[in-house]
């Protein structure tokens, strides 16, 4: 978010480590800095340390080493209730013995706010999530989606500048999830709040965020905007984790003019863009997105390397065709093509040639 204080970091992790048992690190050397108003998603498989990071930021876990700063102030030793950070939980955590309005009133009451102010703010927050008529209900009388809207309203009602969301949509069905994804981003942008959002759903991460931090093994593997993350994964984990991906193992033969020539294990030669390979002879995993694979020879440059492939399976998916091929000895190579009149519907058993633009094919670490 380009804003006037975009240079000033609002939330900062500096060399943060976390260990629960004193033997292994759950979070290894975390450095992160986000400006005010940013929607940042922590994405990663379970056990990757993303929730621990969120809990350290919220104050429910203490960092073993390193410093966490909020608006320039170190908050390592500030208890959670004094941090003023809003939080939305996966299981909503609405207080079951209070009505919706009482739930929203709670953060205002503990801030000793007057009754009329409280009511005005509660009404505004409920209207914001389109739940204005539900103030008198109990959480148990609401559906999952409604509960999460209320949880959202409760996290926002005391106007925090930073809101943390811990897989808030994980328990909802797909359609509801998509509606709420849109609503959450809209609210975040409208209110100009900073959001740290944890999820293991990459679609959610890509559609909602300004930036995504991909976590694995206690480290941020890549921190980038969604398009960059998808199109330019920095390592094979990110490439594998974000979107669908074809991987071919090989050895670097030559690096020249920003182009690498890789000999696959089956002996085939391909061109690709070196990302984190630098030496000839290095092992590499080559990553190609299924939709960037070209089956039409005419669209490739004449000197492009191509590979022979055998069609194993053709799946008609409506908007796209999904074709499974045997390529370079692997039979899990996927190609996605748009359903267009000029696209051939490949029959299993057909021998074809495939190729790609070298910049779409990235040579990553093995």
């Amino acid at each position, binding site marked *: 978010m380009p804003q006037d204080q975009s240079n000033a970091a609002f939330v900062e992790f500096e060399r943060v480590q976390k260990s629960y048992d004193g033997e292994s690190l759950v979070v290894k050397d975390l450095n992160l800095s986000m400006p005010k108003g940013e929607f940042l998603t922590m994405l990663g498989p379970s056990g990757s340390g993303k929730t621990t990071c969120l809990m350290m930021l*919220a*104050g*429910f876990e203490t960092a073993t080493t390193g410093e966490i700063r909020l608006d320039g102030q170190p908050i390592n030793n500030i*208890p*959670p*209730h*004094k*941090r*003023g*950070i*809003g*939080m939305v*939980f996966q*299981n909503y*955590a609405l*207080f*079951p*013995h209070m009505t919706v309005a009482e739930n929203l009133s*709670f*953060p205002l009451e*503990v*801030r000793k706010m007057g009754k009329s102010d409280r009511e005005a703010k509660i009404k505004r927050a409920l209207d914001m999530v389109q739940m204005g008529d539900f103030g008198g209900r109990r959480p148990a009388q609401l559906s999952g989606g409604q509960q999460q809207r209320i949880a959202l309203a*409760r*996290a926002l009602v*005391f106007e925090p500048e930073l809101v*943390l969301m811990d897989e808030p949509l994980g328990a909802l069905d797909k359609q509801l999830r998509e509606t709420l994804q849109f609503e959450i981003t809209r609210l975040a942008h409208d209110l100009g709040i900073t959001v740290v959002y944890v999820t293991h759903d990459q679609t959610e991460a890509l559609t909602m965020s300004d930036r995504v931090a991909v976590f694995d093994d206690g480290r941020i593997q890549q921190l980038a905007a969604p398009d960059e993350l998808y199109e330019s994964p920095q390592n094979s984990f990110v490439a594998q984790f974000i979107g669908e991906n074809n991987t071919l193992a090989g050895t670097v033969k030559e690096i020249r003019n920003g182009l690498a020539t890789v000999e696959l294990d089956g002996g085939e030669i391909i061109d690709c863009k070196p990302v984190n390979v630098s030496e000839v002879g290095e092992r590499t995993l080559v990553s190609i997105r299924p939709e960037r694979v070209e089956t039409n020879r005419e669209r490739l440059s004449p000197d492009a390397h191509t590979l022979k492939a055998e069609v194993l399976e053709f799946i008609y998916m409506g908007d796209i065709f999904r074709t499974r091929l045997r390529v370079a000895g692997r039979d899990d190579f996927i190609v996605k093509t748009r359903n267009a009149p000029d696209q051939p519907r490949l029959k299993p058993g057909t021998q074809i040639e495939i190729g790609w633009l070298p910049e779409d094919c990235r040579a990553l670490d093995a």
Partner: protein
Amino acid sequence: MADAIDTNTGTTRADRRAEAADTGPVLASDGTPLKASLRRALRAQKLRALMLVAPLLVFILVTFVAPIADMLFRSVENQIVSQTLPRTTAELQGWESDSGDLPSEDTYRALLTDLTLAVAANTHTRLGSRLNYEQSGMSSIFRQTGRNIDDVAAPYLDNFEALDPRWVEPGTLAALMTDPDYFAAARAWREENPVGPFGGGATYDQPIRLNPGIGELLPSAAAIFRDWAEYVRVENSAVVGDEEPWSLFYLRLYQDLLNVSEADLGAYDGPQSDLLLETKRMLDQFQPVSIRDRFIEVDAGWGNPDIWATIKVYSPSYTSGYFLNAVDMQLNAEGVSMQPEDERIYGILFKRTMFMSLMITGSCILLGYPIAWLLANLPMRTANLLMILVLLPFWTSLLVRTSAWKVMLQQQGVINDILVWLGVVGDESRLIMINNQFGTIVAMTHILLPFMILPLYSVMQTIPPSYLRAAKSLGATPFTAFWRVYFPQSVPGIGAGSILVFILAIGYYITPEIVGGTSGTFISNRIAYHISSSLNWGLAAALGSILLGAVLILYWAYDRIVGIDNVKLGG
């Protein structure tokens, strides 16, 4: 396709849908109402389910429900008086107990009959004990009278003897009253089966047959003769002619002779009819005595109208007397009144039981809540270890645990020794912590603590830690978060634990018996006393019923205030 023609009825599905909506009851395919079909289909299932629970159901009914119902019934049941003294209680209906007069001579005669039969059946002492609960001295009156019951009407026997000595020969009476054939057969049997050196021997197996006609001539004497003859035949292995009848018989005979006309006597020609006629003619020489005076002679208590008033008050088959006793009241001739000040003990005991049970419940909440919290929030391994410690007392005998407290708390016990050693208390002023309320509360809190912890724990386990986190993230201090968010959700556990502990405490017996001394005992100890020592089961049943009622009322009140749906023992 939705309106495909149904092959059976020729109607479309849409038609049938409309039909069902119009006519109300939905029909199954065979035309019977769907509800009836469903019921029939479920009946077999229900029956199978019932058969599965039947053994337990029967077991509970036989071993639990029936004994309790029987015991509770005893709290109002009072048939012993009217069953033992049926004639007397009937006569007493016409007697005004507040008149200050003694009952009529007829009442005393009825009492003589009732008691004679009761002594024969040996039930008079039980009645004495029963009435002794209501008025002390009753027991001894009935024992004394029972021992001398045959003396009461003895003057009548003497009178008959004076008129004609033949009257006291057993054979005369037997011949007069008994059917001649039966009499001859009985005497012949006696010849073959002589009475052994220590009495007893075989019992004649033919029930008595009275002389035809004697029953109409001397109805009341014949009736008592029959009772007596059967009694001696069965109980003493005697036959008619062996023994002299009860003196009551002579009283009855005298009355019958007064009533019967000379003409009727003259017309009678059975055995000994001339003796009867002679006696009837000489009856004016008879010196009748008052049975009332005779009773008073045997035991002066019979001259006390209060004794009679008590018998009259307790003659109905059902009485509120036990319940009144149980609440320190009494039922006497004047009606219902409070017991004398110094005899009111049950009110104090009930209050003490309630108070101490509340104290125990309160201490269990205070001690159990933090432990349950720990159990619910510690990692599994540690929690399991702690859980074993909580459950450990369950696996130890109750007596051992209670006795251990005796060792700990007594004046020469562990705690006092430590306090003296630390110099907190002087050696001469050791604390008295046992055989009083303190000891009972401490020991019972310890024993009942698991019953508080377990429901609390199972409720707390269901409260996700995210609630507290949410509250803190919303700005609540740890205490506010606990008090406004966690605690209200744990209330069902407190409720369940409290009900459990309170109900267990209110009926607890062994622990207060061992460590309670006199000031720390419960109502249950009194109930046990009445069951096993004083044998006043009616009062014990009444006390137990009140206890049960109190628990039910508390349960009801709890349901109204907190709602029983909020009680969770788990999940």
